[in-house]
C-alpha cells in the first residue's frame, strides 16, 4: 500500500447511531481506520441529504450514505462515486398500526391511509410508493406525512396520527417492542428485500467525489479498507459482541432488545463490499419510475456510480 496523500480526513454521516451505519461505528470504535493510518473526524448530520450537501460543498471528504444519492448526483452531473457497499438491503420496514392491522394486510390496502415517512422524497417514502406501485396504486392514493427521524415518529404512531409507518431502526424496534405495530414489509432480510425489489438493493455505502478519489487513491483505499475490516468483523461477531462494541447509549436502554435488532438485520450487512449489478439496476429503475427528474436519465450512470476496485482490493489485501 502506497503512502497516504491525506492522513486527516473528515467523514460525514446522517445519523451515526443508526444500525444502518453500524460498520462505520464499528470501524471507528475498533480503531480500524487508525489501522490503515487514517485520522478520521466523523461529522454527524441531521439526515443523509445534509451530509451529501457537505460533500458537494467540500466541507467533508467522504460520506457514508445511501447509494441512491450517488445515482441522483450522477444524474445531476455531479461526479460522486460509491466505493464500498456497507448494507445490501435497505432495512426499511413498513408497518401498520395495531388498531387497523386487521383491515390493512398489504400495500394494496393503503388507499386513503395516512402514511408516515421520515421525510417526503426520502428512501422511506420511495420504498412505500414502490410497494404501492407494484399493486397498481399511485402515490396520490395515500397521504404522506413527514414524521422526522426520531421520537416524533414514535409519538406520531402512538398518538394514532398515522396508520402506516415506513421507517428504520431504532424507531421500528421501539414500536415493535411496545407492541404498537404489525410489520407488513421488512427489507432487513434478504427474503423481504427480494420480495419487494426482486433483487438485492444496495443501501448504505461509502461515497466520495471523483476528483478526491483521483487525487487521493491511497487515502480512499485506506478508508475502504477500514470499513471492509468492519464488515468482516461484523460478519464473524455475535450480536452480543456487536452490542458490546457500540457505545452503551445505542442500546436504547435495553441491551437484549438491541441484540435482537442486530440479529434481525445482521444478514443485511454486505459480505464483500462489492455491489451486485442487478441490485444497482433495481435501485436505478425504482428511482426512474418514481422521480420525474430521473425520467430522462440514461442507465449509463450506473456504471459511474460505483467503483468496485477499492472494495475488490480490500477483499484481497485485508484479512
Amino acid at each position: 500500500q502506497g503512502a497516504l496523500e491525506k492522513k486527516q480526513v473528515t467523514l460525514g454521516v446522517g445519523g451515526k447511531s443508526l444500525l444502518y451505519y453500524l460498520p462505520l461505528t464499528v470501524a471507528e470504535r475498533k480503531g480500524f481506520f487508525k489501522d490503515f493510518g487514517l485520522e478520521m473526524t466523523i461529522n454527524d448530520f441531521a439526515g443523509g441529504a445534509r451530509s451529501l450537501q457537505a460533500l458537494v460543498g467540500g466541507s467533508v471528504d467522504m460520506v457514508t450514505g445511501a447509494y441512491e444519492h450517488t445515482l441522483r448526483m450522477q444524474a445531476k452531473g455531479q461526479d460522486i462515486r460509491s466505493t464500498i457497499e456497507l448494507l445490501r438491503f435497505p432495512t426499511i420496514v413498513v408497518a401498520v398500526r395495531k388498531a387497523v392491522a386487521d383491515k390493512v394486510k398489504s400495500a394494496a390496502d393503503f388507499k386513503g391511509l395516512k402514511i408516515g415517512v421520515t421525510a417526503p422524497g426520502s428512501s422511506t417514502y420511495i420504498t412505500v410508493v414502490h410497494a404501492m406501485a407494484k399493486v397498481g396504486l399511485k402515490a396520490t392514493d395515500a397521504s404522506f406525512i413527514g414524521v422526522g427521524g426520531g421520537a416524533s415518529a414514535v409519538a406520531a404512531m402512538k398518538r394514532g396520527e398515522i396508520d402506516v409507518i415506513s421507517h428504520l431502526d431504532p424507531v421500528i424496534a421501539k414500536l415493535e417492542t411496545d407492541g404498537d405495530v404489525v410489520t407488513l414489509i421488512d427489507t432487513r432480510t434478504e427474503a423481504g428485500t427480494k420480495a419487494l425489489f426482486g433483487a438485492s438493493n444496495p443501501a448504505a455505502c461509502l461515497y466520495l467525489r471523483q476528483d478526491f478519489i483521483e487525487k487521493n487513491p491511497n487515502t480512499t483505499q485506506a478508508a475502504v479498507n477500514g470499513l471492509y475490516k468492519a464488515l468482516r468483523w461484523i460478519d464473524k461477531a455475535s450480536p452480543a459482541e456487536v452490542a458490546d462494541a457500540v457505545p452503551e447509549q445505542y442500546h436504547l436502554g435495553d441491551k437484549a432488545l438491541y441484540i435482537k435488532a442486530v440479529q434481525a438485520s445482521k444478514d443485511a450487512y454486505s459480505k464483500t463490499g462489492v455491489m451486485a449489478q442487478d441490485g444497482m439496476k433495481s435501485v436505478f429503475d425504482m428511482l426512474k419510475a418514481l422521480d420525474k427528474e430521473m425520467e430522462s436519465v440514461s442507465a449509463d450512470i450506473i456504471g459511474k456510480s460505483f467503483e468496485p476496485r477499492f472494495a475488490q482490493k480490500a477483499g484481497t489485501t485485508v484479512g
Partner: protein
Amino acid sequence: MSRGKLLALQILVAVAVFLAWHVVTTWSIVADVKTMRFFFSTPVDVFKRVFTMFLEGSVYRHLWITLVETILAFVIGASLGIVIGFWFARKPIVAAVFDPYVKMMNALPRVVLAPIFALWFGLGIWSKVWLGVTLVFFIVFFNVYQGVREVPQVVLANARMLGMNERQLLRHVYWPAALAWVFSSLHTSVGFAVVGAVVGEYLGSAAGLGYLIHQAEGVFDVTGVFAGMVILMGFVMLIDGIVTLVEKPLLVWKPGETRTV
C-alpha cells in the same frame, strides 16, 4: 424622498442581487458553476418554478396552511408575550422569581423540542403553531417587560394621582407607553413566527411551505427549495405590511420631527 424614487432604489437593490446571483451561477467565478447551482440554483429557474407553482395552483393549499400557522403563532405568541410581559413588569416579585427560568427556557433549542411538541399537539398545525409561539413569545415578552419599565416616572405618578387603578394604568399608561417597544418586537417576531411554522413543518408534517421545502431538499431539488423560500419572503412582507398598517395610527402621537409647511 418620493415614493417612486424609493421604489426605484428598492428595485435596484433587488436587481443587483439577482444579477450577482445570476452571474455566480452562470460563470465559474467564485466557484465551479455546477457546485454553485447545486447550492443556489439559478434565479431564472427559481422564478420559473415560483411561477409554475402558482400557475398550477398546487402551492395554494400549502401556503394557506403555513399562513394559518404563522398567524396563529404570531397572535398567540405576541399576546402571551404582552400579557406575561405586563404581568412581570407590574409584579416585581413574580419577575424576580421567574426571571432565571424564563431565560433558561428561551435558550432551549426548539428543534430538539419538536418531538415533545408532536407528542403534545400531534402532527397537525398546532405543533407548528406552538413552535412558532416559543420563538415569538420571548421576543415580545422581553420588549414589553422593558417597555413597561421605561414609562416616564412623572407621567406614571400623574396618572396614579388621577385615580387610575392598576387595570386603568395598564390600559392608559403602560400599554401606550410600551407600544413602540411592542411594535419593534412585532416586526422582529413576524419573521420568527414564519420560521417557527416552517421549521415545524420541516420537522414533521403533511403540508405547508416547510413541507414543500423539505421535500425538495430530500431530492436535492435546490430550485424547489429556493422557490419555497422566495414565496416565504413575499409572505413575510405581507404580514409585516399588516403590522405596519396597524402600527401607524396607534403611534401618531409620537413627537417625531416637527414639520413646518
